[in-house]
């Protein structure tokens, strides 16, 4: 896969179809690759990588990249193509300045899940027939591949690319995912239990804003959390109110636009299950206003940008099941 991608990228660079390539660059270890822009065949040979740890969604970087001159080649996994579409729809990405190559998706690995097993001093991780061989400074450990896949890949919603100029590998199908199971489980708890659950999660938040910064739906030039006049600007949350407030507002701002790409939960250093907040909105929107998948195309109106005369009243929330 990686070879085919590098080969194609070099061809497109040589033909002058694109003048830059966005992909992932090898990190110091085999598990800390970062998104990067490449401009020459030499750079691609030296450090381009695509493997089990290249989970970062490259779509958002294209907001800044397409402001620049010239055309850029982007490698997008199926889930990333939804974010890409959504950004095109919101006029944040100039579609004409991107050459999209669809590549197969994960499952991708999450190094934190390996570390959670108490494996430390990790030097290298190899996947041998779906058993991970983990070289550490203390020797070699093993664990099954599927126990280390990232949370977002556990409930993959689609293997289908919704937009591309060409594909490397096969295109897949939209999946019948189990992504709302945990939301439903929480809904069935009592309000006190839910409160306790979220207190224990949200109180871990250090307000690093990584979830906001990485999110392809969060592309505001000036975010409310950066506005010193808002009274809620970047700073550690002072108390439980501010923790709740930050998370409610962040999730609300992306409601109807969040493609459920899973980046927010992936980057959270405190492993807060932010995807549950996003999915709660998605689940509500689906059940109240009709099934809607953000990023599926660039034409459908976002659910919070439209209305129907006979929409349900807000009291539906109060009439629902157990308190």
């Amino acid at each position: 896969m990686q070879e085919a991608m590098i080969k194609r990228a070099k061809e497109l660079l040589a033909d002058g179809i694109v003048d830059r390539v966005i992909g992932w660059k090898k990190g110091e270890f085999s598990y800390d690759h970062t998104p990067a822009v490449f401009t020459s065949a030499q750079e691609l040979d030296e450090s381009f990588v695509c493997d089990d740890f290249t989970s970062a969604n490259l779509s958002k970087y294209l907001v800044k990249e397409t402001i620049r001159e010239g055309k850029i080649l982007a490698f997008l996994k199926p889930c990333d193509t939804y974010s890409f579409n959504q950004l095109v729809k919101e006029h944040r990405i100039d579609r004409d300045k991107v050459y999209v190559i669809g590549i197969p998706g994960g499952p991708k690995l999450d190094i934190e899940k390996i570390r959670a097993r108490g494996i430390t001093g990790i030097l290298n991780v190899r996947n041998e027939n779906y058993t991970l061989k983990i070289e550490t400074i203390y020797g070699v450990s093993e664990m099954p591949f599927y126990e280390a896949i990232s949370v977002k890949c556990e409930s993959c919603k689609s293997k289908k690319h919704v937009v591309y100029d060409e594909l490397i590998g096969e295109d897949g199908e939209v999946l019948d995912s189990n992504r709302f199971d945990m939301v439903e489980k929480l809904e069935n708890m009592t309000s006190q239990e839910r409160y306790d659950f979220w207190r224990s999660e949200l109180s871990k938040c250090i307000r690093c804003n990584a979830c906001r910064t990485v999110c392809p739906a969060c592309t505001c030039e000036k975010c409310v959390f950066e506005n010193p006049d808002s009274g809620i600007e970047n700073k550690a949350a002072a108390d439980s109110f501010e923790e709740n407030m930050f998370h409610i507002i962040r999730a609300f701002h992306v409601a109807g636009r969040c493609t459920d790409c899973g980046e927010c939960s992936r980057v959270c250093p405190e492993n807060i299950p932010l995807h549950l907040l996003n999915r709660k909105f998605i689940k509500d929107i689906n059940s109240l206003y009709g099934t809607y998948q953000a990023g599926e195309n660039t034409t459908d109106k976002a659910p919070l940008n439209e209305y129907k005369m006979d929409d349900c009243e807000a009291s539906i929330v109060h009439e629902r099941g157990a308190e």
Partner: protein
Amino acid sequence: MQVNNNNEFQPLIVAFCCNWCSYAGADLSGTNRLNYPTNVKIIRVPCSCRVNPMFILRAFQRGADGVILCGCHPGDCHYTSGNYFTRRRMTLLFSMLDFLGIERDRTRVEWVSAAEGAKFAATMNEFTEAVRKLGPNRRLEDLRCRKQ
């Protein structure tokens, strides 16, 4: 939250009322000498859809025990469609608050026209009593803003 002389809990209710219907409805209930609790503090907004989720959270932060949003009946919005957006927005917000374990009966949306002074008073009486039963807002209060 407030406490009266007998040390009883007095809920603080913030009511966002749209200028064109509900605020006039509140006015009418006043000129008709209808009673509604003094616990209710009205904030006038140009249209119900002026209220963004932050307003609701802020009200709770500053000590409200219940927040109610009143606007024109669907179809009657002075700006044609504002309240339809309000309806979707608030439905999702209330559902999210409920999901986070914040008592859902502390929030409400009600459509009150300029002719419905009686409905305004009845709604406020009923909502205040409902919130009184729930007790003080603790799950979404900012300790720094607590009065006592």
